[in-house]
């Protein structure tokens, strides 16, 4: 096992982690601020990917595709917030789950209806294609490095928005006491639409960015959604910082586990058995991680202490 392989896999894990963060940030923000469990967050990821694939295919510009992803997902988010989600804030979590599950079905079938059942492909832009040579002679895909950079930049931007702007103060005040911030003159429903659209836009952006290295198809959002839930439970529901740390932990655990656990098992097992049990354990690893974190800190790493 070479150092190059380890570094490569760490970079893969980081790339996966920051993309998970884009998903989880919106999810945790929406849960933290509005108390809403949004199962349809994965649909917004898909909407972003489809919008990017369609617009990039049509105009030939990846950048326009990304802009379209952000805009389409944010718009879809704002619309569902105003039409459906708004009625669910005071509802029980189970009702929210049911209603947002319905949204998944509507988005999935709607997308199938518009784009058909075949996957679309979104090409990596020319300027970012191919490998780069990192210090130490490691060859690594430039696009994946760009994903890491974009993810980190968004994380910093989001942190600045939440911590340093008036809107961010109001969002956090709403998390503390939503009736009070309203009674002081802040239009909560507008703020909620904005937060929802922001979360949706981030999901759409990550769908588009990941869409270029996977295929763009109906149902692509749900596996990511499950991972994003694991991320926010680990990080502490409602905490952006928690989502960031949780996303990197999950990204690294999942990626490194998948590669190194079979190799580790091969030390004391026969290769084919090691391969099997190693990858079985690897696919459980993030859930085991979640379990361990919850035993240690029941509200997650950065969750409010009860």
């Amino acid at each position: 096992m070479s150092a190059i392989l380890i570094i490569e896999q760490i970079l893969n894990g980081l790339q996966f982690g920051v993309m998970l963060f884009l998903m989880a940030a919106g999810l945790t923000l929406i849960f933290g601020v509005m108390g809403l469990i949004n199962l349809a967050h994965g649909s917004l990821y898909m909407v972003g990917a489809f919008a990017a694939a369609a617009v990039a295919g049509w105009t030939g510009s990846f950048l326009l595709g990304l802009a379209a992803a952000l805009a389409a997902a944010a718009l879809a988010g704002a619309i569902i917030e105003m039409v459906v989600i708004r009625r669910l804030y005071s509802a029980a979590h189970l009702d929210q789950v049911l209603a947002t599950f319905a949204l998944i079905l509507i988005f999935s079938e709607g997308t199938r209806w518009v784009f058909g059942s075949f996957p679309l492909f979104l090409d990596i832009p020319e300027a970012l294609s191919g490998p780069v040579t990192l210090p130490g002679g490691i060859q690594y895909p430039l696009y994946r490095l760009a994903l890491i950079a974009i993810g980190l930049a968004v994380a910093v931007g989001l942190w600045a928005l939440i911590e340093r702007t008036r809107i961010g103060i109001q969002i956090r005040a709403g998390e503390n006491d939503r009736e009070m911030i309203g009674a002081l003159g802040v239009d909560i429903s507008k703020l909620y639409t904005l937060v929802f659209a922001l979360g949706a836009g981030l999901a759409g952006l990550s769908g588009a960015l990941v869409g270029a290295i996977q295929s763009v198809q109906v149902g692509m959002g749900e596996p990511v959604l499950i991972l994003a839930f694991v991320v926010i439970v680990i990080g502490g529901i409602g905490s952006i910082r928690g989502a960031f740390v949780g996303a990197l932990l999950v990204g690294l655990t999942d990626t490194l586990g998948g590669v190194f656990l079979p190799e580790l098992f091969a030390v004391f097992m026969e290769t084919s058995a090691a391969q099997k049990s190693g990858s079985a354990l690897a696919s459980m690893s993030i859930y085991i991680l979640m379990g361990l974190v919850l035993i240690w800190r029941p509200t997650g790493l950065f969750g409010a202490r009860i």
Partner: protein
Amino acid sequence: MSFLKVENLTAFYGSSQALFGVDLSVDEGEVVALMGRNGMGKSTTVKAICRLIRSKGVLTLGGDNLHGLPSFKVARIGVGLVPEGRRCFADLTVRENLLAAAKSGPWTLSRVGELFPRLGERSEQRARSLSGGEQQMLAIGRALMTNPRLLILDEATEGLAPLMRQEIWDAIRHLKQETGVAILLIDKSVRELSAISDRAVILERGKTVWTGAIEDLTADVTAKYVGV
């Protein structure tokens, strides 16, 4: 014409009626004490004015009908609420609490800092780490930052040490003398209320039972309705 006008206000919590006909008015620059025993409808009246609960009857501010307005619009047309229990945003710093709902006007961070020097000193401290009295000052400062025309103080000295109480009363007195903001006051201390208010309104069982100038508020009246 009165700035805040409340006439025959009724309100329900679910199916149980809480207000049975509250009459109350506050003129511009006037300080009015809203009195009555616990559970007689004082805080409910405040919630109704701020549109935090639904109510019926006349409810106008500066001629605008408040019925049908969401609570944030009531705040925007000039009602600054210092709620019962303070309700500071616990995870936000003092500065952030003050900025959260700030509206432009004469009240700014530095002016609130002058009124309550303790807040100025603790501007980067989280609200949850403040003492009760400091949180109360923060709740008042936060309401002032919305640059209200009517300030409502619901039990602003409740549960505070005597010294803190005195600071809060001094601040309210300062607001009355220096700013001309109309104030609606709820408090347990009849003595302090009498010293600062222009008029009093007394509620009993969700209904206005006495209203008049503070000079006319005799010991008999307070003994009968306020229980002191």
